[in-house]
């Protein structure tokens, strides 16, 4: 990995954006960012049983005047689809950061169908997708995505390529 500090850089962006609710379904690629958020007493870090819970939670957060982010793996995108209709109908802001599987150097064939479907599934559900292939672009992209979400009231997902994360090592 060319820039192992990218989780810290994203974390700084989230803090600067005033994010106070972090919904997550764990993923190895998000481990460090989740750890940073959990250590921040100003953030509610909420472990979810399924990603769609996070979509709904962030709708409630915005109703209450709070900003949030959803951290998940590409396999969780399919779990969110119908709940994203609430986001689209109400024009709730949504900021999601998605670590990719099934996309680049994948070993597990079961990850490929959802991984390959992420961009089109999100696009069909009304979510703007920013794909990032280089670690040095991540923080600026999350910054731009947060502005699009919270200032322009849009649903935006940043997908983090396996090129950045590295393929899972199977032993």
């Amino acid at each position, binding site marked *: 990995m060319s820039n192992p500090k990218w989780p810290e850089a994203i974390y700084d962006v989230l803090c600067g954006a*005033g994010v*106070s*609710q972090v919904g997550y379904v764990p993923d190895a690629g998000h481990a460090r960012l989740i750890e940073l958020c959990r250590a921040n*007493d*100003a*953030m*509610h870090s*909420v*472990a*979810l*049983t*399924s990603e*769609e*819970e*996070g*979509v*709904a*939670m*962030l*709708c*409630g*957060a*915005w*109703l*209450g*005047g*709070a*900003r*949030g982010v959803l951290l998940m793996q590409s396999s969780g995108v399919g779990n969110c689809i*119908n*709940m994203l*209709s*609430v986001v689209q*109908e*109400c*024009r*709730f*802001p949504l900021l999601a950061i998605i670590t990719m599987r099934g996309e680049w150097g994948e070993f597990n064939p079961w990850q490929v169908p959802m991984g390959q479907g992420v961009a089109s599934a999100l696009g069909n559900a009304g979510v703007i997708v920013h794909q990032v292939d280089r670690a040095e672009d991540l923080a600026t992209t999350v910054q731009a995505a947060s502005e699009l979400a*919270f*200032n322009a009231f849009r649903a935006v997902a940043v997908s983090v390529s396996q090129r950045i994360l590295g393929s899972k090592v199977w032993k």
Partner: protein
Amino acid sequence: MNTASESGAVLDRRQVVSQLLAGRGEALLITGLGSTTWDAAAVGDVAENFYVWGGMGGAAMIGLGLALAQPERRVLVVTGDGEMLMGLGALATIAVQGPENLAVVVIDNEVYGETGMQETHTRFGVDLAGIAAAAGFESARTVYTQSDLDTLSAALFVAPGPLFADVKVSTERHDTVLPPRDGTYLKHRFRRVLLGDPEQGSLAGRKR
């Protein structure tokens, strides 16, 4: 497969929701899609109500996000048994967070009332209050009688949460009372009464 038993519930959903909301004060209300939205609208459409006309399974989690953002306000989720069953994981997630200002009330008629009155799992004995209790809700109960309902009403907006109640109601159907259904309108209306400027992305709910 288990056989369905007659529920024998005696409480009327409209009277239940009316009684529960009578004591709401400044509480914020989230309703699930379908009958519980009509029930709340029949009591009276106010800006502090946010009706979720879709997103089945999401009402309780919308309530959690709101409760975390507004720790000084009581938040009540009123939803149906079918809607709650679609998002059971939320009970675990909410229990782990433990928001003291959140209550989830299921109006449980044991059928999918909007789609042909097919039985839900609760008709076959699935115990939602038991699930909430096992998940770790501060308080979880099933309400069968007027006396049970009176006890719930007294606790609903004052007892430390998270509070869960499954209220068994009859399958009697009522007139459909439609509140506004435009999502962006409901969102702006809610934020305006709660926050002032509905466009302002304020930064409420930071943990202190």
